[in-house]
């Protein structure tokens, strides 16, 4: 790993840990491997969004050419959001691609991803199914995103969560894995019949 990259990551690590956002436990950064190439980030779901109260883990890889090239970041926690793949956690965010600038830091990355959770860009989707739901049936999107945040990321339960959990359970009783059940139900706007059909076809 290039010495500049090491130097920068060390410094940015310190920047995050001592930041006011870390004090308010909005963002967090931890080392996975001692070589500073692999980091784990954490962001809190922003208030007044379906993600409020939830905690999302991010997987961060630092390339040798850092900071001239952006870090590779994806969600390790499952999330239902138009710009994040519900299957792989890949993020569609300009600063992680061509809008990256060497002067940006891991703190700006974490804060930008947190901001993305508060303002989705359905016209530049990473997950087409979620984006479609977001545009066509926003109330179902909101319900689903909130359910995922509760189910996978420790978010606050909502008035309808018992109802949705019951639907997931009914699919699990048929021998379907709970992750597959949540995915299929979310994909088909919580229509259990279509969801089951899609799994067994």
């Amino acid at each position, binding site marked *: 790993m290039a010495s*500049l990259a090491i*130097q*920068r990551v060390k*410094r940015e690590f310190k920047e995050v840990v001592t930041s006011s956002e870390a004090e308010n436990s909005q963002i967090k950064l931890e080392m996975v491997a001692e070589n500073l190439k692999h980091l784990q980030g954490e962001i809190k779901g922003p208030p007044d969004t379906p993600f409020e109260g939830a905690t999302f883990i991010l997987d961060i890889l630092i390339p040798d*050419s850092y*900071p*001239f*090239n952006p870090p590779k970041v994806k969600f390790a926690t499952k999330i239902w959001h138009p710009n994040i793949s519900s299957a792989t956690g890949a993020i569609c965010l300009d600063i992680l691609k061509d*809008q990256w*600038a*060497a*002067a940006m830091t891991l703190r700006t990355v974490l804060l930008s991803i947190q901001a993305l959770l508060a303002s989705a860009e359905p016209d530049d989707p990473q997950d087409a199914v979620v984006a479609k739901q977001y545009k066509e049936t926003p109330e179902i999107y909101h319900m689903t995103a909130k359910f995922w945040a509760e189910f996978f990321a420790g978010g606050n339960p909502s008035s309808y969560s018992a109802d949705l959990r019951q639907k997931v359970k009914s699919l699990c009783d048929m021998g379907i894995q709970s992750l597959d059940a949540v995915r299929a139900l979310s994909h088909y706007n919580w229509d259990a019949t279509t969801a089951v059909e899609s799994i067994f076809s």
Partner: protein
Amino acid sequence: MSQDDGIEDTTSNASDDDDDDDDGDGGDDYDPYAPGLSEGEMDSQDLGDISPTTDPESYNYKCLSFSDAKKSLESDAKITSDKLKVSLENVQFMLHFYFYDVDKLEKVYLEDSNKVLEETNLIPKSNAKTVVMPDYCPICYDQCDLVVFNCKHSFCLSCVSTHIEIHISSGNALKIECLQCSLLLNRHFVVSCIKDVQLIDKYDKFLLKNLIETHPLYCWCPGPDCGCIVKVDFSASKPVTCQMCSTLFCYICKHNYHAPSPCTQFKNWLKKCQDDSETMNYICANTKDCPQCKVSIEKSGGCNHMCCRNCHWDFCWMCLGSWKAHATEYYECSKYKTDPSIGDGGNSARESLNKYLHYYSRWKNHIQSLELEEQTRSQINEHIQGQIKLGNGTWIDWQYLLDAVDLLLKCRYTLKFTYAYAYYLEGPWKEMFEYHQAQLEREIENLSWKIEHSKQTDTVGIVKQMNITKQKRLTLLHQFTSEGETTQLKVTSSES
């Protein structure tokens, strides 16, 4: 052996030289569009057809070297540069940003030059925050001499150089920005930051490459390792033959030239052929049984008019029907006929497979014919050489026969693509197309037969057949490529 009276016995080398070029679009090994085959001065015989006034395939283009292309792009930009009083380099970038819409760029620039410069990131954004000059490099935190950009962002030279090098090695030279904002770094600045001469060279190559890849009137020759740059007068799905490597390609999609099939349709067709190629292999066998006496017959020339050596039965290689029916005006072998025994309901999958099989087998057959025709060409060459040695005329006297083979290749080339085109056609337009296709196919077979059986005396007959065949090919292209689209509209609207 199929022909009773060939130029030479071709049985032996027909199987030895088996060319396994099975990529589905064939045609890398010959060039039917080579210069010297002009159809401009065609005799317009009274053929009862619409006589095309313009050649639908004529296309002006130039093949340029790297440095010539650079000069050409610069001279294109020079006019705008003078008009707007902006450096050549900046104009080239602005043109790129405006998708080479010169009129629009000039208009917008003359209205509000700062707006254009700002949106193309050639000057800093006017609403950008004022920058406080730090006493260290914000990238590496070193306290050393800093380079200050126009946006007032500043960095150490080492970080700026690394940034530039990383962009160049990833193939980006056109859009290297400030390390903190989106201000563009121009060539003058970039070059001043890199000391490595080879890297500067690489930078210039990528800069030109980036410009050409987005320019509607320039493209790289798709030929392997060619590196030649083609410049056209207007962008269209027309044939280009690279003067450096002889690759024949369509300017728009860079595939093998595919008229009359349009680009997207042709791409679908290639994909379909690739997906289905396994099931189709059986059709492509080079031997068939004579429909009359059942003796196995090997196809050796490109001609579809087969003549069984055993029973002397004349038949068509494609449909195995009697050749006599094909020799008339109503040559219909190329036409796909819906099998009347298949009802409307239920069997649509079989029906669509049959339809595909029909077009695919003819497509594949023409690829093979083209390969075999190459052999015919070299045999004719040998034959002529032999005749000249014997004192039978000179190369000039025999030129007509070589021209005839070249024309045959060119026509078969087009014919091959008519099957990709016809597969996607529907309705009255399809009927009309298949009529013209059948006409062309018939004349091609006549020409092929005449060439394979010509000795030295039949100059007049062959030249006459050449003119007819040429005319049929041009008529078809004229009516069914972009120029013909207006006709197509008329036909469909009058039918509906």
